[in-house]
């Protein structure tokens, strides 16, 4: 594989940038693989990469119905954080933060990792108390957390609405300084390029339509490009999990819902951090191109539409203007949506299943981008070793049987209400 470096860039500039290798090939499926990953989103690509890199498997395929980066991995608002209270979440996502820090070097691809800090605003004394508790829990798990008062926030983010007569005055907030953003496309492409270089077949435009299971054991898959044999399957299809679960006769604690996001026209740098509104659901960061990147609530009813509805957008942006009044002067550049695998306790599932050779990776809700590296890392371990890693042991499917839910937000089963 060609290395990406400034020297290679200059060298190639002399012959008009001809002679760059393709980043990943476009192979036809082989008859059989040791492991097939279904879904070429961030999680599927990362899983294949770590299977090859950490577990020395070299006969792996990723089967993707569309194209690499066409799913949620290319639709999210790129926020990275590990500001969770529960141990299962905190320790898992913090391992993810470690992987983010070295990702560009590891993948030899600039993923534009930007630890600019994430600030959750608080608008009442009660909320400050809750954030104090969460911050302390985070620090006990070795995660950076700083509680900020109103004046400190004013210094960091002066464009917020600090006037006295607002409905939700800013009392303070909780900041995770190492939180931030990364470029989502680059993450997908970086993992794809490295996985390909290690011999993983990335098979695009190939939809999985069925499974071959004999005596409770995986034997292969049926696809739009024919049948492929395998003994191990990793399911990484995010918002499409319930559709594949139906083919497997499984009824999962998931519902598919739609989340929208939008960006404004680009403006000069004005917002240095990721900031979230605490009296509703709105968050905002500024991209390197200068666009304000914004998102918030789910549309609120089951949807596979991959495009959203205006009432939710209006509601979300009303909160945005309450937080950052200057937003009202900007033009909207684009809005879009993606379909989310909402789990019944808001936490993911990374586990084996009752079918031998079938491994499940789902339930990412609206926060799976930040999990991309650690999800792939733990899922690869689970598939290769046929047992969960201690970091994903809590994310088992059986917790819905035993009652060991990981309900970070205390929302109960209607996580889509948010």
């Amino acid at each position: 594989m060609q290395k990406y470096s400034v020297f290679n860039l200059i060298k190639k500039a002399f012959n008009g940038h001809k002679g760059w290798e393709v980043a990943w090939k476009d192979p036809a499926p082989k008859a059989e693989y040791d492991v097939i990953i279904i879904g070429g989103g961030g999680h599927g690509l990362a899983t294949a990469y770590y299977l090859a890199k950490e577990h020395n498997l070299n006969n792996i395929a990723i089967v993707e119905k569309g194209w690499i980066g066409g799913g949620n991995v290319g639709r999210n608002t790129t926020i990275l954080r590990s500001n969770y209270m529960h141990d299962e979440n905190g320790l898992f996502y913090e391992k993810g933060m470690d992987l983010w820090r070295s990702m560009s070097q590891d993948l030899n691809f600039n993923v534009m990792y930007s630890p600019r800090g994430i600030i959750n605003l608080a608008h009442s004394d009660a909320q400050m108390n809750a954030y104090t508790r969460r911050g302390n829990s985070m620090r006990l798990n070795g995660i950076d957390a700083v509680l900020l008062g109103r004046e400190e926030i004013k210094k960091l983010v002066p464009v917020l609405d600090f006037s006295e007569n607002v409905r939700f005055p800013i009392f303070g907030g909780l900041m995770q300084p190492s939180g931030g953003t990364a470029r989502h496309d680059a993450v997908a492409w970086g993992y794809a390029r490295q996985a390909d270089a290690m011999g993983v077949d990335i098979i695009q435009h190939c939809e999985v339509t069925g499974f071959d299971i004999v005596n409770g054991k995986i034997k292969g898959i049926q696809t739009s490009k024919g049948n492929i044999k395998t003994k191990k399957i990793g399911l990484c299809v995010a918002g499409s999990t319930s559709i594949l679960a139906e083919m497997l006769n499984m009824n999962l604690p998931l519902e598919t819902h739609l989340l929208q996001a939008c960006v404004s026209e680009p403006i000069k740098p004005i917002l240095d951090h990721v900031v979230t509104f605490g009296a509703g659901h709105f968050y905002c960061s500024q991209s390197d191109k200068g666009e304000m990147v914004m998102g918030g609530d789910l549309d609120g009813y089951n949807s596979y539409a991959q495009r959203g509805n205006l009432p939710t957008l209006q509601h979300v942006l009303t909160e945005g203007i309450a937080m950052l009044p200057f937003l009202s002067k900007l033009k909207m550049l684009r809005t879009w949506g993606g379909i989310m695998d909402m789990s019944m306790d808001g936490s993911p599932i990374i586990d084996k299943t009752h079918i031998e050779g079938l491994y499940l990776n789902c339930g990412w809700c609206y926060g799976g981008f930040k999990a991309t590296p650690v999800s792939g890392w733990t899922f690869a371990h689970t598939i290769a070793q046929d047992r969960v890693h201690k970091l994903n042991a809590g994310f088992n499917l059986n917790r819905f049987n035993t009652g060991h839910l990981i309900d970070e937000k205390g929302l109960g089963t209607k996580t889509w209400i948010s």
Partner: protein
Amino acid sequence: MLHIKCPHCGLRSQNEFSYGGDGTIKRPELNKEISDQDWNNFVYNRKSPRGKHVELWQHISGCRQWIKVQRDTVTHEIFQTADVKQDIK
């Protein structure tokens, strides 16, 4: 914007309703021995189909009644609405 025909009030905008999820889920009968699996299916497990979905909505800014709606989860086309006690096939 969805337009939902409340069986009691007529056609109204989505803004007047709040969503109640899968309308085919039946609560296990009271005072009967119920397996953990049955409880799971009632509380957590959902089919979440791509296509026709029977779901509950409450006409919260109208008559405040719960209603059943059959809607396509891809196109959002609404095929049928009914009083909550009625069955939608």
